[in-house]
């Protein structure tokens, strides 16, 4: 049956995760059982393959970028449960009057920004935008058309004229977008 290492979380661990992410103990337990079911090798951590084994994620054009977001901190090839929860916490709905550490509007925008920013230099260059466009459309649109789309997008968002989109410019460009709704997942119970 495999070695189910610590199937139950310890109280301190739950408390720590609740403190950092804002999830309720119930939600933490449910997500932990999801984490363990993804962890085929029973090692307590997830690798990129574990994520991409999920069919819906594997066919998602941005699947690789999303998985990469979990591995961003540190250089390790594996994600432990705390890191897993910290990333998921970005998608908690914003609660008014509550301390939103990881799921504020700015945090959500930062997460979206990191999807585009491939080399983590806090700027989105034209090539990075082009790379993301490639991921999303595949071979269905020609190179020139994609380049013109990328150029137009940068032109519209760039305010200081450096041909790159900084995080502030990104936030301004998405000012009218309902980021709370688009980047929040409704958790039951």
């Amino acid at each position: 049956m495999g070695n189910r290492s610590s199937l139950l979380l310890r109280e301190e661990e739950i408390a720590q995760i609740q403190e950092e992410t804002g999830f309720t103990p119930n939600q933490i337990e449910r997500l932990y059982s999801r984490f363990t079911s993804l962890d085929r090798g029973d090692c307590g951590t997830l690798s990129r393959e574990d994520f991409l084994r999920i069919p819906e994620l594997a066919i998602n054009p941005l699947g690789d970028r999303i998985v990469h977001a979990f591995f961003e901190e540190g250089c390790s090839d594996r994600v432990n449960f705390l890191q897993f929860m910290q990333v998921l916490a970005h998608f908690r709905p914003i609660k008014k009057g509550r301390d939103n550490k990881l799921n504020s509007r700015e945090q959500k925008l930062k997460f979206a920004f990191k999807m585009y920013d491939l080399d983590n230099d806090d700027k989105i260059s034209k090539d990075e935008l082009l790379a993301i466009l490639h991921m999303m459309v595949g071979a269905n649109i020609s190179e020139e058309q994609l380049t013109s789309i990328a150029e137009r997008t940068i032109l519209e968002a760039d305010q200081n004229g450096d041909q790159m989109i900084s995080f502030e410019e990104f936030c301004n460009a998405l000012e009218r977008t309902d980021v709370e709704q688009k980047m929040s997942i409704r958790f039951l119970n």
Partner: protein
Amino acid sequence: MALIWSVVSVSCSILVMPFLMFLLAIIFLASIGKSLGVRRLYVKMLLKIFEYGRENIEIAKKDRHTSCDNSENEDEDDVEGQRDKEKGSSNVTCHYLNHSNHMLHKMDRKLKNGVLANNSTSVISREDLILVPDPEQNYTSASTVNSEGDHTAVIHNFPRRRSFETLKREFELSDCLNFVKAGVEAIIEDQVTHRFEAEELKSWNLLTRTNLHYEFISWRLSFIWMVGFLMRYCFLLPVRVLICFIGVMWLTICTGIVGYVREGKFKRWLNYHVSIMCFGVLSSALSAVITYHNTENRPKCGICVANHTSPIDVLVLACDNCYALIGQRHGGFLGILQRALARASPHIWFERSEVKDREAVAKRLRQHVSDPRNPPILIFPEGTCINNTSVMQFKKGSFEVGSVIYPVAIKYDPKFGDAFWNSSRYSMMQYLYLMMTSWAIVCDVWYLPPMYQQEGESAIDFANRVKSAIARQGGLVDLMWDGQLKRMKAKPEWKEKQQEEFSKRLKIDTKKQE
């Protein structure tokens, strides 16, 4: 020491006679097609025990989870929560009568704030984009997910969103957000991966295997569990193993005898009754309680298709009707069984090398089906075992033959024992062991009216039509994902289709050329 031995041997010899009588009685009753109704009584009793256990657990849970997660529930304007509250409140009223007043305050708080009995085992609610292999159905899937597990599921579309999305728009930086959200939702909870594991039960059925987070609830419950454990392992298991052994021998002998009869109408009649009797004996080895619905649609010829949960499906169906089986030729004991069965009735057994050759398979199917006197062939088009909460893609091979299709829906009740065979986790022997130490196998079988391939309908469309009929009848979720995802990775073509779909929605500025 010697005294104990003599006592044991005396008691054994006293018990042996009635025991043998009991076994013979089972075989005799199976052969005349009647049953004592003992199993149904047993199942009813179990239901009462489970209900008691569930109440016990709920009381204990209320004691423990006081205010920590109540506050989180306040802002969830949950339509489902409303519904659950109504359902939950009727469960609670019987508790009011039985337990002390200090519970009342806690329960009041629970009722006001959130979901009482968690009727859904979902973690999140998915209303937007859910990616599926056929991107045109990306949005419609979202509406079917929320009605999961509901026998009267209504499938409604969200046309407003779809028509809005089909307008071509220019690319914006926020376009990636849909994919990102869909991806993260899939990481938390997706449609497919949990179909290859045993179904999660809503309340404990007193088997340790289903209660991974076993916590001590109450002395009464633990006592009941202990009694159940002893009964299952010390009484039921040996009896069932014995019956199974005898049943298999009986099957081999009977089919061997039938095999010697000359071909003709009498042989077919004999085979029909012998087959049902032998499988009836085998079904008591698992304490199977099967309810057949709509027996007027019972297949008489052609091809019978059903959703696949475990090898026991064959047993369940063969207790009511005689089928021709189709499968790979095995060596060893299973091979002997196959040869015995083949003598009595026309089954289709393949050599391993032929299995891959679809033409050969189709040819033999057609041959079998063309003779209306042959029994119907039993086929499981999913090709692999799924956990009985959903129906996955049907392979089109059996739908191309052009014969009449009799769909059958099988739904097991997981409270009494989960029949799903997780072949990556358990071997066949382990699985049988688990089956024989469960409470019982309780299932419903619905025979659906025969379906024919229509003019101009492709085999794939026909297969999907049959699949949704089976899913609807059995209260299962109709998925278009391939069951082979249990072992294989998602195909790159599916991602390419998603990319294509997205690029169709992009308005491209074709004026600029330089």
